[in-house]
């Protein structure tokens, strides 16, 4: 399979970025929107073509999906250890290509309406294209180092886009927070990469993930060295997962995600819902054989528990938030936790690997309906000019399309058949049930919570009280409603894609089937959540208030996101800054700088004193000269005799 044309998929957005970035002032806003959309359309078309070619024409040999790689050595360290640049095509990267280009294209189209009239319109599209380039490069990376490079690029684009409204202090703070937190996590990622490079001797995914025909990992030297009772490779995997957890907003590195909602809503839809935040899931999936085989999957268990806990944690917080974008942000965190736990409970071979498949499936469907939810929320915000639930209500009369599409997305995320989320969530629950009952019940509980808070949001926005608006809200323009409709369509049909035919852990397709009792339980839980939300929020009443008062302390904690921001502030400001950084800074200033400056000052003082020797008087020089000659002569004649 000739895959070199795939290079165009990331490079077209890069070209668009350069074009829009360099000619920022010259290009008219209207034109720049079209350029961005056009570039992404071409990329998306190429991605669809690639997917068609890969999944239906050439990708499958003897029932196993092959990996195609085209790369060039960039930096050579040893025969096996080198940093390559290239593209890698396998089921998950093709799937990610589709997700990224589709959502990105929709967001581009949507932004033409949403950002209309904004001062930095062209700049916004340039940043969007930069992000698309980085994300596509990340998806196509052939080795750990390449993925790390694009990982950081994605971080930068995210930083730029969160801080897009750079005149708002909160946006700037949020951008910094996102960057610093993810960068902190990436520090672990980098150390993990270096450990892998040192102990495994390669960065290459294919070598690292090599599996023999019996289905055992080939990276056998993982046990060669250990540290604190665990293999170093396990430590490396945990550190790499730390990087993934940072990007994917897993507990306890999640604190940046809610604040990232300061960015424009299309950005939240693209980066903080559908693509960048799933990079962590993608990373674990990319290294799945390693996670699974090294030391009996210890690292994978950690992934499962972190995912499950984050999922529950975020869902509880989401119940209490009043900013609709923050609800969605915590919902995203919760759903990514779902994907992580699915990966964590997965096995490698055949149908045992249903968790892996389910995770990727959920990633795919979630990208569609969560992008839709964000874009719908953006549409509402566009109409109401507020982020807060209290300013909304009864909008169904004014915004029919948004209402319907939002409802579809909410049903999808709540796991109601036949919408997309039902299918993927069901697979996850099946996988969890078989492997770990505790995680299964956590996941089931989260499913109920998800349905509840999502319909709380839906009823709160479109039903509930009849708010009097200053300006009568109106439906958004076609450029904004088209993506909504398209993504709603995807949210309905995506679930019917037989994912197990395409994306599996060991690349062998298997027949996916619905587990009816499991599905019934899940749907039942979801429906309970929806009905509760109906009772609480359909009509304006004080049930919800009484209920939350009953919980008192717990409600308050959840509303304040369990005070995690405050804890981090305490740790960083009080402990790290005051107890560690400040003394170090003082030490540096007083002793390190002091020594250096002291040397400089002493030199100056000594120079001042001895510069009198340089008197300019010829006779003094002659005196020194003669004395020197005499001394040297004495030394050589009387002392150096041998």
């Amino acid at each position: 399979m000739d895959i070199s044309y795939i290079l165009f998929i990331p490079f077209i957005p890069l070209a668009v970025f350069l074009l829009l970035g360099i000619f920022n002032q010259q290009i008219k806003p209207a034109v720049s929107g079209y350029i961005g959309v056009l570039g992404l359309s071409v990329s998306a078309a190429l991605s669809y073509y690639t997917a068609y070619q890969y999944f239906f024409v050439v990708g499958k040999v003897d029932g196993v999906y092959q990996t195609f790689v085209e790369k060039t050595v960039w930096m050579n360290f040893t025969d096996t250890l080198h940093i390559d640049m290239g593209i890698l095509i396998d089921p998950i990267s093709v799937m990610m290509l589709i997700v990224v280009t589709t959502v990105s294209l929709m967001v581009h189209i949507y932004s033409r309406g949403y950002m209309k009239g904004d001062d930095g319109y062209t700049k916004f599209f340039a940043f969007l294209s930069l992000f698309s380039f980085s994300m596509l490069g990340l998806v196509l990376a052939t080795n750990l180092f390449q993925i790390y490079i694009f990982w950081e690029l994605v971080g930068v684009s995210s930083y730029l886009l969160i801080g897009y409204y750079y005149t708002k202090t909160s946006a700037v703070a949020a951008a910094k927070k996102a960057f610093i937190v993810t960068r902190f996590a990436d520090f672990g990622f980098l150390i993990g990469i270096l450990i892998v490079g040192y102990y495994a001797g390669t960065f290459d995914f294919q070598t690292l993930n090599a599996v023999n025909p019996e289905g055992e990992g080939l990276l056998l030297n993982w046990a060669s060295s250990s540290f604190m009772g665990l293999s170093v490779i396990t430590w490396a995997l945990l550190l790499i997962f730390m990087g993934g957890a940072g990007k994917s907003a897993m507990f306890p590195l999640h604190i940046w995600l809610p604040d990232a909602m300061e960015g424009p809503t299309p950005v939240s839809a693209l980066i903080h819902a559908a693509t960048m935040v799933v990079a962590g899931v993608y990373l674990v999936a990319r290294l799945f054989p390693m996670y699974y085989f090294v030391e009996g999957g210890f690292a994978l268990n950690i992934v499962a528990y972190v995912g499950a806990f984050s999922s529950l944690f975020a869902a509880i917080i989401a119940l209490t938030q009043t900013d609709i974008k923050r609800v969605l942000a915590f919902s995203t965190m919760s759903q990514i936790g779902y994907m992580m736990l699915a990966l964590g409970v997965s096995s490698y071979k055949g149908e045992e690997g249903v968790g892996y498949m389910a995770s990727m499936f959920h990633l795919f469907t979630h990208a569609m309906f969560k992008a839709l939810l964000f874009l719908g929320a953006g549409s509402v915000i566009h109409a109401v000019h507020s982020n807060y639930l209290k300013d909304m209500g009864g909008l169904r009369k004014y915004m029919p399309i948004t209402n319907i599409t939002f409802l579809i997305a909410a049903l999808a995320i709540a796991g109601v058949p036949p919408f997309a989320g039902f299918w993927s969530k069901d697979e996850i629950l099946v996988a969890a049930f078989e492997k770990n009952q505790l995680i299964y019940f956590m996941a089931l509980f989260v499913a109920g919570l998800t349905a509840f808070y999502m319909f709380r949001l839906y009823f709160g926005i479109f039903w509930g009280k009849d708010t009097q608006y200053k300006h009568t809200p109106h439906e958004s323009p076609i450029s904004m409603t088209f993506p909504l409709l398209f993504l709603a369509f995807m949210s309905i049909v995506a679930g019917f894609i037989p994912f197990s035919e395409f994306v599996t852990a060991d690349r062998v397709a298997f027949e996916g089937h619905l587990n009816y009792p499991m599905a019934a339980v899940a749907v039942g839980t979801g429906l309970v959540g929806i009905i509760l939300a109906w009772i609480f929020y359909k009509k304006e009443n004080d049930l919800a208030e009484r209920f939350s008062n009953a919980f008192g302390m717990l409600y308050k904690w959840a509303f304040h996101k369990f005070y995690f921001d405050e804890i981090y502030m305490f740790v960083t400001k009080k402990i790290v800054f005051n107890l560690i950084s400040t003394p170090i800074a003082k030490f540096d200033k007083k002793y390190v700088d002091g020594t250096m400056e002291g040397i400089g000052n002493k030199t100056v003082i000594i120079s001042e004193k001895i510069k009198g020797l340089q008197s300019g008087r010829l006779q003094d020089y002659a005196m020194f000269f003669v004395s020197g000659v005499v001394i040297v002569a004495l030394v050589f004649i009387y002392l150096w005799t041998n």
Partner: protein
Amino acid sequence: MIAGISIYEIFTLTSILFFIGIYGFITRKNLISILISLELILNASAINFVIINKYLYPDVLQGVFFSIFIIAVAAAETALAVAIIINLYRQISSVEVKDTEIMKY
């Protein structure tokens, strides 16, 4: 050859003259006096050349030639030095060393 005088005695004489020249060069405070001391040093070395020629290598004349060159160079140097001194005197009305120390530091 000077009858009855060994080369050591002549070297003693030239060494004494040489160091008297150096003493003068360092202690005198006037440019012309320094020039005079310099002449002493030059003459002491010129004598050495000639004496070594005469006592050790009487068949050749290299030492004599060197002395002639030294005399020529000394003449040129003195002419230039006197020109510089006179010019300096025109500019600052002094030939004292302490007045010409402006190029220090």
